[in-house]
């Protein structure tokens, strides 16, 4: 088991409404649990505000759960020291929604892809950057260019190259294709599936689009208002949804 999320809850304190009342609390993720095996893909679907990104940020150890714990490859992420967490980071990487926002506009593509390697003090940075570029279908010369010289789909390939250059065991993809044209979406999804076979990646694939998730996931989890409505093998959830909300998602996806 590469990832285990157990009874995780995350609350946000909202701005105080009145001087003497306690500030309202929003439960962004409510008692969520999931497990992910090596090489498998788990899809998380749910409407906007259902807590998908919050869950992803906790899995990436960007923020801590208020309750519950998250184990990656046997390590409790929130019990690790700063140094141990940094040494573990190359093993779980993330790709983001906005292909225009996930690359620093002031840095060359090669510099950005090499960033995690520099932190690891890797010795063969150039070779590994070239290899990662080739794996996502880009050319060696592209390393010297800046992000604005690429299309949205190409940028997402660059972001994927940066995420796999450390040879991670887990990839968290938060709405990784939502901002792309439908034809480009298919290319990126195919690329992700190829890389998954090639590298044995486990993937946490987040989307509000059930059709996209259904096409690539082994496991499926449906969220709404922070709560997990249902979860299980993708085939099973899709064939016999137990919750009316899942049924409405299926109808909306035209299944």
């Amino acid at each position, binding site marked *: 088991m590469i990832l285990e999320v157990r009874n995780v809850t995350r609350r946000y304190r909202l701005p105080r409404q009145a001087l003497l009342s306690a500030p309202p609390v929003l439960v962004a993720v409510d008692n969520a649990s999931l497990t992910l095996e090596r090489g498998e893909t788990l899809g998380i679907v749910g409407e906007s505000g259902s807590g998908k990104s919050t869950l992803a940020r906790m899995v990436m150890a960007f923020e801590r759960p208020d309750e519950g714990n998250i184990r990656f490859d046997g390590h409790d992420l929130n019990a690790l020291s700063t140094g141990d967490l940094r040494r573990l980071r190359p093993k779980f990487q993330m790709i983001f929604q906005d292909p225009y*926002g996930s690359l620093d506009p*002031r*840095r060359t593509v090669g510099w950005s892809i090499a960033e995690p390697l520099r932190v690891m003090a890797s010795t063969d940075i150039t070779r590994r950057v070239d290899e990662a570029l080739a794996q996502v279908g880009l050319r060696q010369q592209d390393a010297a260019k800046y992000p604005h010289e690429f299309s949205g789909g190409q940028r997402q390939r660059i972001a994927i190259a940066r995420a796999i250059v450390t040879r991670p065991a887990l990839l968290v993809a938060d709405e990784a294709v939502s901002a792309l044209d439908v034809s480009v979406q298919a290319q990126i999804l195919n690329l992700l599936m190829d890389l998954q076979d090639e590298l044995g990646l486990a993937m946490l694939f987040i989307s509000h689009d059930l059709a996209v998730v259904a096409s690539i996931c082994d496991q499926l989890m449906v969220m709404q208002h922070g709560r997990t409505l249902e979860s299980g093998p993708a085939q099973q959830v899709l064939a016999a949804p137990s919750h009316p909300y899942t049924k409405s998602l299926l109808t909306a996806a035209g299944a």
Partner: protein
Amino acid sequence: MKLPVNLLIGAVLVALVLGAAALSLLWTPHDFTQLNVRNKFAAPDATYWLGTDQLGRDLVSQLTAGARNSMAVALAAVLLGGSIGTALGLLAAAIGGWVEDLVMRIADIGFAFPALLFAIMLAAVFGPSLTNAVLAIAFINIPVFARVARAAANQVWTREYVAAARAAGLNRFAISKDHILPNIAAPVIVQATIEFAVAILAEAALSYLGLGAQPPSPTWGRMLSEAQTLMYQAPQLAVYPGLCIVAAVMGFGLLGDGLRDVTDPRLVRER
């Protein structure tokens, strides 16, 4: 792309002032310290382009040497105050929480503190000097830059490439250096240009009060204060340094505004 008018006018004025300041390092028409009492209040002619003052010193030479002093003080003060302020703003944004609150509250206090008062205080304690004038002007720049840098940095911190850098294992100081600073450079430089104008005015005010550069080193502010008693006799002695101050302050102010217009991402996106 069409360049805004304020940018063009500002650039021309700044080029003139900087040109005069640079030229005065190599050459001035006359020695600006040389007294020639027999030739006092000379009218403009081929030798003394703008005439001479009450001690017979050449006005053009004094004005260009004054430009050099103003520029030097403004540059030193803005560089010093700007670096410290930017570093504090970056730090506040990087650490957040009570550290950020503390830094920004201190900046608020510094902001509310009148620069001239602070300079007078420094002069009272350490004596009037050019260095103290630089320190006083630098000091009032710290909160200005801390605010600008922090606001811009907080925006950059929400970007996904910063999250990617965290996933790569960079700590917040490395992220501040590698990603935040390069991406807040534009607003900081714009602010520096505007603060340059403020610094020129502050330097003029300080040396007008005798708290800046000491004689014989000429400054616009002191020329103005010396000319004050001669307002009816020789008003031109006050007019020329006054015009220089206005040109320099307006030049850097307009240049800063113009730079902001062309670098502000909101405007760029609309274009």
